[in-house]
């Protein structure tokens, strides 16, 4: 079994705004595109043009419907590794392949040590692990560890591919362990939540919930329109307005 670091210097992660996500899949394919040539390359696609197509993806978006007091709602929900503080996918790993970095808290897999036993994917309740059957190795979101520190990229581009791509600006990145970081302040302001915290794995990523329908909208306290009744109604009103 693999040990977790007692402490990580940073808690790098993502914050995803469910109030703004339109489910366009930009983060999904931007992630695929970067990572299929990146640290865990390739993100293999089996039977890519056939009836049993099955590929490795680090990030997927699902759409759900649910009913609230104010009526039905459709929520687009991007799902990727949450880089938990105490992830079971690491502790169950028999070889030390699955590990959590002490520096930044990113959960990674050392492919050389992975024996493809899939214990980690059974342990992860979030479905964040992707088994590459072609090479018999587990793969997963790296938080773009090969982008965020990459000296070969311009400084401004050193963010995860999904964050750079998102057309509605629904994805955020930073150190969630630093309460003063911009991303922590955002979580604070918007009431960001962890997924299924009751399981005890302490996800790092946060989701900003769709605001309740009633107070989600900008308040338009518009008084009801009143028909012009006096003096010839609307046409009379025009006359008066233009005569002023």
């Amino acid at each position: 079994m693999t040990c977790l670091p007692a402490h990580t210097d940073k808690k790098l992660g993502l914050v995803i705004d469910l109030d703004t996500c339109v489910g366009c899949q930009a983060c999904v394919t931007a992630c695929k595109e970067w990572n299929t040539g990146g640290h865990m390359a390739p993100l293999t696609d089996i039977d890519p043009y056939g009836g049993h197509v099955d590929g490795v993806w680090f990030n997927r978006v699902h759409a759900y419907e649910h009913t609230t007091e104010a009526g039905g709602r459709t929520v687009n929900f991007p799902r990727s590794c949450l880089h938990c503080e105490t992830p079971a996918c690491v502790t169950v790993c028999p070889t030390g392949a699955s590990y959590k970095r002490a520096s930044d808290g990113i959960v990674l897999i050392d492919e050389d040590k992975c024996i493809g036993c899939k214990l980690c994917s059974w342990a992860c309740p979030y479905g964040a692990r992707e088994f590459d059957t072609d090479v018999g190795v587990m793969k997963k979101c790296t938080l773009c560890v090969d982008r965020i520190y990459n000296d070969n990229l311009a400084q401004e581009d050193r963010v995860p591919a999904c964050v750079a791509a998102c057309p509605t600006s629904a994805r955020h990145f930073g150190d969630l362990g630093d309460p003063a970081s911009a991303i922590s302040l955002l979580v604070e302001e918007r009431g960001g939540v962890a997924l299924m915290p009751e399981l005890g794995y302490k996800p790092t990523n946060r989701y900003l919930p769709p605001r309740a329908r009633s107070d989600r909208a900008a308040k338009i306290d518009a008084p009801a329109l009143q028909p012009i009744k006096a003096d010839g109604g609307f046409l009379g009103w025009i006359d008066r307005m233009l005569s002023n």
Partner: protein
Amino acid sequence: MRHDTPRGANSAPSQRPLTDSRAPAEGDGVDTSPTVSDRIAKTTCYMCACRCGIDVHIKDGKVRYINGNKDHPVNRGVICGKGSSGIMQHYSPARLRKPLLRTGPRGSGEFREIEWEEAFSIATERLSAIRRTDPKKLAFFTGRDQSQSLTGWWASKFGTPNFAAHGGFCSVNMAAGGLHTIGGSFWEFGEPDWDNTKYFMLFGVAEDHDSNPIKIGLGKLKARGAKVVSINPCRTGYNAIADDWIGIRPGTDGLFVLALIHELLKAGRVDLDYLLRYTNAPVLVVQEPGAADDGLFMRDADGNPLAWDRVAKQSVKAADPVAKLALIGSYMVSDRRCVPVFQLMAERYLDETHSPDAVAERCGVDAETIRRIAAELAHVAFEQTIELPVAWTDWAGRRHETIKGRPVSMHAMRGISAHSNGFHTCRAIHLLQVLLGTVDVPGGFRFKPPYPRQAPPGPKPAGKNVQPMTPLDGVPLGFVCGPDDLLVDDAGRPTRIDKAYSWDAPLAAHGLMHTVIRNAWAGDPYPIDTLLMYMSNMAWNSSMNTVETIAMLTDKDDAGDYKIPFIIYSDAYYSETVPFADLVLPDTTYLERHDCISLLDRPISHADGPGDAIRHPVVEPDRDVRPFQSVLIELGARLGLPCFVNEDGSAKYRDYADYIVNHERTPGIGPLAGWRGKDGASVGKGDVNPDQLQRYIDNGGFWHHDFSADQRYYKMGNRSYLDFAVEMGFVPNAEPIVFQLYSEPMQRFRLAARGHGKVQPPKAERGRIEAYMDPLPFWYAPFEEATVDLEKYPLHALTQRPMHMYHSWGSQNAWLRQITSQNRLFVHHGTAAKLGLVDDDWVWIESINGRVKGQIKLIDGVNADTVWTWNAIGKRRGSWGLKDDAAESNRGFLLNHIIGDQTSANADGRRYSNSDPVTGQAAWFDLRVRIVKCAVEEAGFTEPQFERFHQPPHMEPSPDMLRFGADFRMKREAAE
């Protein structure tokens, strides 16, 4: 390079790199700084029509990664699901590899490969004979063409009027509706003021146009807490994040909008000052039933429209900036009774038939909601006005110390467009915006240059006099102002093969590509010889009534010859249409070609300034394919077309890149506006600059000019802007652009139907022209709904493309197809329960036109009278490099099979194209269906099924495994 001010859309503090982005000493051996690319080429995406700027990272001669260009005004660094999948489009196994000549029966897919020289000879010989005898026998129709300024020009020089792109089956209602009303329209012509709007209304499917700017804009609205209201039968995509989702019944948006107008008028909540200044609301309309000018504008001797001066109590020029003009009343001018336009509007829309109570049931929206939305619109427009501290001068020379705005904006696209009442509905939406005073004001809907233009803009469609060896006297597509501009013969019959600009579709504007195959097959109005098509899947998802369309493509006459004698098709991929071509000209991908995204064409300007862009080859083709535009230019030269050859008969342009730089449409104006002049110092007008393409490449592939602060709003009447627009050649003069709430061109058609004028409709068409060429927007039931038995076909059926595939032929794309490879029919839970259907059932979807089989998925977020599906996911076996067991051809289905391409016969037995009667826009969304659970043995596979296509010679079978990117890693690790 470090920028002090973060660039791009995603640059909030919570989206930036770590303050210290040096790699920590983790000691786990992870290479945190791998080399990404050998070079980065900046060009323009073509995965859809949005045309974003992209950075293409090339490694070892292959495309490693594509991201958004942060400086590009369209996408500001973001990129969508399609753009990020460009690699898979480029390396698609469905790509064609060499010119093909048909050897088997048409539609079989049996071809032999030929050399380009043979392909050119065949095409030249055929087209040369047509041009010598009857040029209109060439029908040249292009689909997802982003080079219409070239293709239309080519058709014009060839001498055929039979040219159009795909606008007729896409969104011509939006273009024509807007251009005839405000001299601009949504998308390419304008955009909401995302930074200032406080109330945004989104009508219908809009995921098509445009992709990233709308998403960026929605993100801004959400971040600012602005209200988003969506009016859409489906609660997907953008509608899922709306604050108010109004699940309206399809095709009733016009009714809903006119009810809002009713409420606003009734309450006196309209912007009278704005109406007086910028619209024809005060213009006097002759009221003399039976007269030849009844319903036309009262004009002075110079042709200026007149209005009534309330103070001087006499008529004055409507453009008089000083006079106090009347908006209501009835006046005698030169012994003629006339009333202001606004009086007519008020009379019509104040009528109780437009009240929320009267329309609620039909719209499926309760009256209270309609009243609430009207109240909110009024409140935001009139009580939450904004004022930018910028002085500006209007067209009449009046200086304004601030720019005032009413922060309500709207957007609509295909959902409104694809109904047979879409033109009038689009006009109604613009009318609503104008009544609120929100067009081109801060917080409102803003024009993108070169718009606004006069409504409607010039020029008129050419093609009245088609002669052998003679170019047209203009370009084939234009705008008509009355019956005299139609392209009809003396008997009133259409002279274009698609019947555009005929009595069937008077304000066509974009042509009617969706009618060409039927008309050419039927020889109605005449037979053609050659159908030349580019990049449009007309044997599948781009046609209505697919099964019959396929039969027409392969139908033969008594002599055993194809009724459509010759088909030339250019495409980069083995689509469902390629097998129906006699000659196939394989195109390149967007990463291998030159292109220009031109102000002469479909611009990519921003409301804050004009822009254009290029594509340039960032990788070399690995096969014998050529960019279609260069092929067309060579074909033009071989045919000796004027302007494509020099005086000595030699080719004028080497290829498309040469044309882009050296072609001048009028002196000083060419395809690209940036870096003109010998030294590259001119914008807009200027001499040819031989280095122009390099200047674009150096600037990241695009050119953009930023307006000064005083030019950014009220462009229809802004002196500084209008002067600039004249300088740039956008408009012929600096006269203000007057919004045409009342359309005089439309009234001219009505008068013709009443027997006036020299060009009159045939008797049988008069009722239709009278009904639909109404000069004020009105609502009528979509045609199919008005004619079918609604008890038999109780449901509306709609389609939309998934956002990750819109305008992108995604089913060949290994990544995109994994997201959607089988489309379901989405059915409301309640509706399904009534029909005894449960989730995952297989059903027949039946219309008056036929039936198709698919699998249902139950949802709540849909209007209960509506079913819908993802469009163009169903594919034909043997196409797109897909394997025989692919979900697309086994379980996915194409709704097009049951969408009629014609209306039901009228009392005279006449069937029209299933289109808007004003513009000819294909009425895809009028479809009515019923759904019936299929028998047990029928479940599990789609029908109808089609014969599998043969594969072109030497086409590699699609791989069983894709390890894209493994090579990059291997080389990287080997280098360590």
